[in-house]
C-alpha cells in the first residue's frame, strides 16, 4: 500500500475519555442553550469564553508546565477540541494561538518568546492571527512580497496580509515575510515575525464575507518596526517552519465538523414519521463522519508518537472538507415538511459559510497535489 494512506486503528486512552465528561459539564454550564451554536471554528468568538477555558487549563494543554501548560497528551487535547466544536462553542479568539502559535514557539521560538507569550496564551489573554496569504499570494505561498528590511536592532516591515481572521480583535500576528530578496530557490529568504496588531503603523481594514459577517481583514504594514527578538527561529528558516505547522493544521476535527450542527438539527427533525429516504440521508452523513473521526484519531495517534503524517493530514482535510460541503447539499433536499426555524437558520448559515471550508488551510487543489505526491505521481 502507498505511504500515507494507512490510518491504523487507534483508541483514545482512558485519561482522554475521562476528560470528555469534564468538558461536557463545563460546556453545559457555560453555553446558552437558546443560542444557535455553529461548529465552524471560525464563525464564533468570545474572549470571555476563551478566558474561562484558559482557567480550566484547556488552552495550550499539551505545553510544558514551565510555560503554564498542563503537559497533557495530544490525545487529551484532541478530545477537548472536538467537544468544543461539536457543541458549537465560540472558540475563534484563542483557536490559532492554541493550535499553531504555541507549538510554533515551542519548536522554533526563543526562550524569551516562550516565557513572554505562552503563559498569556494559556490564560486566554493573548490571541494570535495567521499571517500567510497576501493580495497576490494565495496557494502559491512562496510568492509573498511583504518584506522586512534589516535596520539597527530589528527589522522594518512593509507590505500587506489578507484574509486575516480576527486581526481586528486579536493581539498579534505571526507573519511570514521576505527577509531576503526572492532568489532562484523560491523557498529561501523567508522568516516568521511576530507583529503587534495594535502598533500604530499597522492598519486593519475589515472585509465582509458573503454572509455579511466581518471576521476577516486586510492588514497593512507601513514601516512597522519588528525588534530582533520578535523574529521566530532563524531568519531565513520561515518556509520550513510554516510547513511543519501543517500536520497539526490539517488533520484535526475542525476539518470535518464545520457542518456538524446541521446534522444535529436534522436528527432532531427526524421524528417517528421520518421516511426511509430521510433516514438514509442522516445515516449516510453519520457513516462518513464516524469514519472521518476514526481517521483523524489515527493521525492524532501518529502525532502523539512523534510522526509527521503530512499526506495523511492532507487526505483528512480533503475528504473531510468534501464531506462538510456535502452535508448542507443533501440535507436541504431531504428536509421535513414543516422544518423548524432553528433547523432552517442553521442550514442557511452553513450554506453561506460552506465555500470557505475548501479554501482555508490549503485549497482542495493544493491538498490533492500533496496526496498525489504521496502516491508517487509527482
Amino acid at each position: 500500500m502507498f505511504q500515507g494512506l494507512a490510518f491504523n486503528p487507534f483508541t483514545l486512552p482512558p485519561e482522554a475519555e475521562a476528560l470528555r465528561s469534564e468538558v461536557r459539564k463545563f460546556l453545559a454550564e457555560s453555553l446558552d442553550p437558546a443560542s444557535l451554536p455553529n461548529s465552524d471554528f471560525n464563525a464564533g468568538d468570545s474572549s470571555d469564553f476563551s478566558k474561562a477555558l484558559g482557567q480550566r487549563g484547556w488552552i495550550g494543554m499539551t505545553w510544558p508546565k514551565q510555560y503554564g501548560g498542563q503537559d497533557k497528551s495530544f490525545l487529551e487535547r484532541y478530545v477537548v477540541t472536538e467537544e468544543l466544536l461539536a457543541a458549537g462553542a465560540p472558540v475563534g479568539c484563542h483557536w490559532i494561538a492554541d493550535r499553531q502559535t504555541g507549538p510554533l514557539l515551542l519548536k522554533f521560538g526563543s526562550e524569551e518568546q516562550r516565557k513572554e507569550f505562552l503563559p498569556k496564551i494559556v490564560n486566554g489573554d493573548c490571541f494570535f492571527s495567521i499571517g500567510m496569504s497576501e493580495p497576490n499570494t494565495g496557494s502559491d505561498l512562496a510568492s509573498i512580497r511583504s518584506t522586512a528590511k534589516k535596520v539597527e536592532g530589528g527589522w522594518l516591515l512593509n507590505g500587506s496580509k489578507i484574509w486575516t481572521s480576527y486581526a481586528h480583535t486579536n493581539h498579534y500576528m505571526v507573519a511570514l515575510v521576505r527577509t531576503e530578496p526572492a532568489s532562484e530557490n523560491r523557498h529561501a529568504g523567508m522568516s516568521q515575525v511576530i507583529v503587534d496588531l495594535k502598533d500604530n503603523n499597522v492598519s486593519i481594514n475589515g472585509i465582509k464575507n458573503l454572509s455579511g459577517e466581518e471576521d476577516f481583514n486586510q492588514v497593512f504594514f507601513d514601516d512597522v518596526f519588528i525588534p530582533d527578538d520578535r523574529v521566530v527561529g532563524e531568519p531565513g528558516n520561515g518556509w520550513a517552519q510554516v510547513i511543519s505547522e501543517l500536520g497539526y493544521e490539517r488533520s484535526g476535527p475542525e476539518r470535518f465538523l464545520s457542518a456538524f450542527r446541521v446534522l444535529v438539527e436534522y436528527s432532531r427533525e427526524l421524528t417517528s414519521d421520518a421516511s426511509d429516504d430521510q433516514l438514509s440521508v442522516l445515516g449516510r452523513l453519520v457513516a462518513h463522519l464516524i469514519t472521518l473521526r476514526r481517521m483523524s484519531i489515527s493521525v492524532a495517534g501518529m502525532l502523539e508518537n512523534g510522526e509527521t503524517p503530512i499526506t495523511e493530514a492532507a487526505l483528512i482535510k480533503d475528504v473531510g472538507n468534501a464531506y462538510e460541503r456535502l452535508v448542507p447539499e443533501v440535507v436541504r433536499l431531504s428536509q421535513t415538511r414543516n422544518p423548524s426555524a432553528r433547523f432552517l437558520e442553521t442550514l442557511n448559515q452553513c450554506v453561506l459559510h460552506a465555500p470557505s471550508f475548501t479554501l482555508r488551510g490549503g485549497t482542495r487543489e493544493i491538498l490533492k497535489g500533496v496526496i498525489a505526491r504521496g502516491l508517487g505521481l509527482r
Partner: protein
Amino acid sequence: MSYLSEHQLLIQDTLNRVLGDLCPKQIVDSAERGEFPSALWGALSETGLTLTGLPEEHGGSGGDPSDAMLVMKGAGKFSAPIPIAENFLGRMLCSEFGLSAPKGITTFSDGSFSISPDGMLSGSSSETAFGRWSDSVVLIARHGDESYLCSCPCEAFEINEKNNIAGEPRDEISIKKKLLDDQFILAEGVSRRARLLGAASRVAQMSGALESILEMSVSYSIERTQFGKPISKFQAIQQQLATMAGEVAASIRAAQSIHLSRELMIELDVAIAKARVGEAVGICTDIAHQVHGAMGYTLEHSLNHRTRRLWAWRDEFGSEKDWQTEIGRFFSGNASGNLWDQITLLA
C-alpha cells in the same frame, strides 16, 4: 509500523504467496467460464486459510474473526473466484448456533425456505453463491415465527446455474427433503446475524479490491504516455487519483473498524462500513476506468475482474442505501440533541 499481530502478518504473507502463485488473471477468467479453481482452493485449504477465524473445536483453524476478514480482504484484492466468504459465513453460523460443522466446501444460501417440525425442508433461493461448487449448503428456514439454521449436502438440491455481473456463480437452488435431526436447529436471530456477517465479509473483500484498483490505476498512469509524457504528470489525472486515494483510505479504515469492535457495537460498525465502502465503490470505479481509458473497458485487462466484483458486492447483503437507512434510524429523533454523545461512543 503495522497494526497487525505477528500471527496476522504470517497469515497475510502465506495468503499473498498462494494467491500470487495460483490466482493469476487466467484462473479468474477460466472460473468465469465455469471451471472451479481447484488448485487454488486446495492450496488455501492445505494452509488452513479457508478455515481461518473459525473455532478449532468446530473444525476451524482458530484465531478470531478479524483474521478471517484479513483473508477475505486478500481474496478480494486478487478477485479470487472462490467461496472464501461464504464458506466462512456458513461455518461461522453453524458454530455460533450449535450445528455440527458442515462437510467440505460450504456456502450460505439466502433464500425462501420453510421447515416443518419433523424436519421436512422445502423452498428455493435465486442467488446462491458458488452453489454448484459447494459440498454443503447452510441456510435459514422458517416455521411460523421461528427461524431454523439448516445444513444440508449439496446433492439434495436441484441447481440451475446462474452468474452475477462479475461472472461469479449465483445459482438458483431448490429443495424438498427430510433433514436428519442433527441437520437443523432452532436459531433465534440467525437472519440478522447472517446479514451482518455477510455484509462484513463483502466489506473486507471490497476493501481489498479497492486497494488493488488504486494500485493498478497509479501504475497505469505512470506507464501510459500521451502528449509526450506520462499521464500521471497531468494535474487532471493527479487530482482524480488523489480523490480516489481518499475514498480508498476511508474504506480501508471503515473496514478495519469491524474487527476491532466491541461486541455490542458490532452491528453499527458493520452498517457504517457497508454504507461507507459501498459509496466509495461508485466513485473509485469511475476514476479507475477513466484513468485506464478504453484498455480498462476490455475483458483483456484485469481491472474488470475487480470492478465488476465491486459492483456486485456493493449490492449484496444490503446496499449502502439499506444500511444508511438503518444507521439513520438509530441516530434519528434526538430531541435532546445528543447525537454527538452517541457518535463518540463508537471508538
